[in-house]
């Protein structure tokens, strides 16, 4: 992580947020890393369909078998519904693949950008100024 790069992306985010106006300025996503994304597979332990934001908790098992829980923040469920999301698209126990912008503190959390559901369908979240998050290609 290069500090200068982080500031660069944060500045870009601020400019775009300012341009996007009120809709984007509601809740800050500045706690998340705008310079990279992480893609993980895991089992859903909770799908919190609430405002102001939805939350998806998943358990991720690493190569050694250890399980780590990740907390992934989504957008408002109203924004999700307006682009076709429904609460029943994710259920506890589902195996999902997620792409998220990690929390800058390094804790196991992130801003959810895209989910691949158990049935293989992939959906992006309507994150305001989503193009300010630099996407890291998934590692095989």
């Amino acid at each position: 992580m290069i500090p200068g790069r982080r500031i660069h992306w944060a500045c870009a985010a601020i400019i775009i947020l300012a341009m996007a106006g009120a809709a984007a300025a509601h809740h800050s996503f500045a706690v998340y890393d705008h310079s990279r994304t992480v893609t993980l597979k895991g089992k859903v332990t909770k799908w919190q369909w609430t405002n102001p934001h939805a939350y998806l908790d998943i358990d991720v098992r690493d190569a050694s078998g250890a399980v780590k829980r990740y907390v992934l923040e989504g957008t408002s469920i109203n924004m999700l519904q307006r682009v076709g999301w429904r609460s029943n698209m994710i259920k506890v126990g589902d195996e999902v693949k997620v792409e998220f912008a990690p929390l800058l503190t390094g804790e196991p959390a992130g801003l959810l950008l895209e989910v691949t559901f158990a049935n293989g369908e992939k959906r992006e979240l309507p994150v305001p100024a989503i193009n300010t998050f630099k996407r890291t290609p998934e590692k095989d």
Partner: protein
Amino acid sequence: MYENITRWVFAAVLSSLALTQPMVLLWAGQSTNIPDISGSWERARDPSIPPQGQPPLKPQYVKEWQAKMQAIREAAARGEPYAERVVMCLPEGMPGMMAGPFPMEILQSKGQVTIIQEAYTQVRRILLDREQKPVDEVEPGFYGRSVGRWEKGVLVVDTVGIREDVLYQHAPHSKDMRIRERISLGADGLLRDEITIEDPAFLEKPWTFTFAYRRMADYQLLEYICEDNRQYSDDKGLQKIRIPGL
């Protein structure tokens, strides 16, 4: 029998009048030049609107406001944003709700125009053709007391009684702040709300800005309850996220 027929005819005439809103308003003895602004609206880009400037605060308040805005920008750039009031599930209030974070619905009924902002289910009631009360008689709140009247197709609104901690663009204001609005439907179909904030205690001159909205055909507002937000404000006022088990 004859009496029954008369009653039915009367009811039929009344209900046909009720079908067309302008007719109802005409019937109510109000100006006929009232546009139908009922329905769902969302913020729209309008190149004719100049970009919103900073609040014209008096010199003694400008520095503090600029320092605050700078601190907010720097905190966000560091990845440690300050927790805005929405993190605590608090709505924007006036005039922030008119900035339309989410769609809004306008309802025109007899003696009242009601504006519902989907985010935080914010509701304001504009009482038509009523006198405004002195500021001190209005209990301070998020939306204040709004009275309005139609003037040549423009809804002219006056609002007082906004709590001093309900801020728009972080600009400080006094309890005497007055919000004047001119809400009009343009020939281009856009609804515009020209907002002028008057507050001689804090502002050098009135602060005017305009929001435009476009109609959302067949959109019904969704419910919005702010609950169990995992974002929170830490003891330094910074926005953090609650992670169970840590």
